[in-house]
């Protein structure tokens, strides 16, 4: 830890920042111009086995994280990489002697800085840990007391383990081996109690042979290194390229980490974005779904409104057509009624004119009676025209109209005709018309019967209507204040009265009778006809 702190003290934050900016600018310039492409064509690289950082494949090719990075930089700068294989100690020796130009995967230490130049930016961070035979449990540095630990000869592990003995007072015996395979074999066959390995040990194929303990001895930074005061320009270019790679999540650096360590860059997506993006996506999806739902509802409502509008337009057209047809029918009915009345008036006038021409009173009387009947028709037509259902008329209006009409048509006779008590009811048109004729003839006959025996000059006649049942109506016509008794055999005698009685019996299913010699009762069926309209 102390050594790392020393490095950090040396490379203070401010200096680092300035250096990074400088390196980035420098890299941009160098990537454009490739200033070393022509000068540094052949670069000799030392390769040893320390997977996954650096290794020799089964086919004899160099591989590993450092090799990937170096090859990517070399390709860009048109370097020709040449590889020299050996153990760690052999390669370190060759680097010191200038046989190789650069050695990857070199942990930084003060001691090494005396004879090596390191890149300013570490390629990887690492730590040194203790691996033991599976089943052995070491949890603390004190558990290492008196134990034999196998280390890679000349490695940083060996150097740091010596420091632990000195600084922490833990007495351990270090057994040095040339390769990692020898270390593992030593632990496996019991020559050593444990092995000091880097954190990358877990990624090797031998990882099942030893178990990693929680004991971490020291952290280190791993760099490319060159011989002291040689090839510094080479390191500068690599520093610059590495800075660029760190800032590009798609760079060869991260691809290599992903390939060898299954590590992915996590810093290029801010944490808040990782939280925010799913929320935003979820909100957008929700909004989209809501919009679709709304659109669907709007479409459905619009369709329904259009249908309703079409139906309404059809209904309006139908109403207009109906109104137009009704207007035509109304005009037609008014005209028909007017023509009917006009023609009735013409017939009546024609009868009168002809009757006058005969100069015969009986004929004139006959014409007057016909005229009265026409007037009754006109009265009933008028009442029907202004009725609510064009089928039935109010009995009070009928009686009042009838009395007025009767009086106007019989001005030469002396009588009073009244209806003191009118019961409100309705009469069907088909009943009112013949009933009017019957009433007219009955009252005329009562006034005239017997002509010569009235004691008083004026005869008072009262009409009364009442409903016997829902099916039968009754008109009572009473001679008040004078006159002789009416006798059925005389009263209902004569052709004209027989016609009226037949009309009453056959059309109105009724009958006429005389009561006490002064009153004529006319019974008739109220429901002979159903409503015609």
């Amino acid at each position, binding site marked *: 830890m102390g050594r790392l702190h020393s490095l950090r003290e040396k490379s203070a934050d401010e200096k680092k920042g300035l250096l990074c900016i400088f390196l980035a600018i420098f890299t941009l310039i160098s990537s454009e111009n490739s200033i070393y492409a022509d000068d540094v064509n052949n670069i000799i690289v030392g390769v040893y086995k320390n997977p996954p950082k650096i290794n020799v494949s089964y086919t004899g090719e160099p591989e590993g994280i450092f090799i990937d990075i170096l090859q990517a930089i070399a390709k860009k700068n048109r370097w020709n990489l040449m590889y020299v294989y050996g153990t760690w100690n052999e390669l370190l020796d060759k680097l010191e002697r200038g046989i190789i130009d650069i050695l990857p995967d070199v942990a930084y230490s003060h001691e090494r800085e005396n004879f090596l130049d390191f890149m300013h930016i570490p390629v990887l961070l690492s730590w040194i840990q203790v691996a033991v035979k599976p089943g052995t449990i070491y949890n603390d540095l004190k558990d290492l007391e008196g134990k034999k630990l196998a280390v890679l000869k000349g490695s940083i592990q060996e150097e740091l383990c010596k420091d632990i003995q000195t600084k922490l007072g833990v007495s351990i015996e270090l057994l040095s081996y040339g390769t990692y395979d020898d270390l593992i074999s030593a632990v496996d066959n019991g020559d050593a109690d444990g092995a000091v390995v880097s954190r990358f040990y877990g990624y090797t194929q031998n990882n099942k042979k030893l178990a990693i303990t929680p004991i971490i001895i020291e952290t280190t930074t791993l760099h490319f290194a060159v011989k002291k005061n040689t090839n510094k320009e080479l390191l500068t270019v690599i520093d610059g390229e590495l800075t660029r790679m760190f800032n590009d999540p798609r760079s060869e650096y991260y691809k290599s980490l992903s390939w060898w360590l299954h590590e992915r860059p996590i810093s290029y997506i801010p944490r808040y974005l990782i939280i925010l993006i799913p929320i935003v996506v979820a909100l957008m999806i929700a909004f989209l779904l809501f919009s679709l739902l709304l659109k669907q509802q709007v479409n459905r409502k619009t369709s329904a409104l259009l249908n309703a509008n079409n139906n309404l337009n059809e209904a309006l057209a139908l109403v207009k057509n109906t109104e137009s047809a009704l207007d035509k029918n109304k005009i037609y009915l008014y005209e028909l009624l007017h023509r009917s009345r006009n023609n009735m008036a013409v017939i009546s006038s024609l009868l009168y004119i002809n009757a006058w021409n005969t100069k015969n009173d009986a004929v004139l009387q006959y014409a007057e009676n016909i005229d009265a009947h026409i007037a009754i028709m006109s009265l009933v037509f*008028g009442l029907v025209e202004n009725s609510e259902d064009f089928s039935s008329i109010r009995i009070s209006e009928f009686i009042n109209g009838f009395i007025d009409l009767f009086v106007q048509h019989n001005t030469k006779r002396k009588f009073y005709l009244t209806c003191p008590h009118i019961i409100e009811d309705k009469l069907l048109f088909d009943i009112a018309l013949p009933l009017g004729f019957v009433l007219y003839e009955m009252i005329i006959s009562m006034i005239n019967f017997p002509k010569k025996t009235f004691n008083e000059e004026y005869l008072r006649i009262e009409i009364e209507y009442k409903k016997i049942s829902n099916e039968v109506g009754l008109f009572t016509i009473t001679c008040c204040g004078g006159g002789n008794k009416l006798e059925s055999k005389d009263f209902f005698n004569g052709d004209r009265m027989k016609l009226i009685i037949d009309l009453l019996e056959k059309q109105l299913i009724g009958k006429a009778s005389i009561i006490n010699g002064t009153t004529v009762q006319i019974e008739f069926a109220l429901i002979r006809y159903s409503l015609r309209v």
Partner: protein
Amino acid sequence: MTFVIIEDEYLIALHMQRCLESAGHICLGIEAEGDKGIRLVQEKEPEIIILDILLAGMMSGIDVAKEIRKFSKAMIVFTTGYTSCEMLSKLESISESVVFPKPVSLNKLINYIEKLKQNNN
């Protein structure tokens, strides 16, 4: 009283004329068309005008009544087969007028004229 009849149905007009004359009134003329009727009224200046609604020619009885009202205050007796409330309300707008639905009860008409005569006296 003096009267004119403006009626397109001649038999009806003739019947009225005879009835009213038999009651002592004086007929000054009969016309079937509105414009001729107006001229007749202008010329004869009757006390009573018996006026049908539907006439021969271009003018209706209401049009004729409106024209007559511009120069005459004679009583107008409308006779009509139209007895709807709409028509009756139109006729009521003509001052000094009365409506007799067809077929007209001539006895009633004579009585009415008698009363009018008494009132004038």
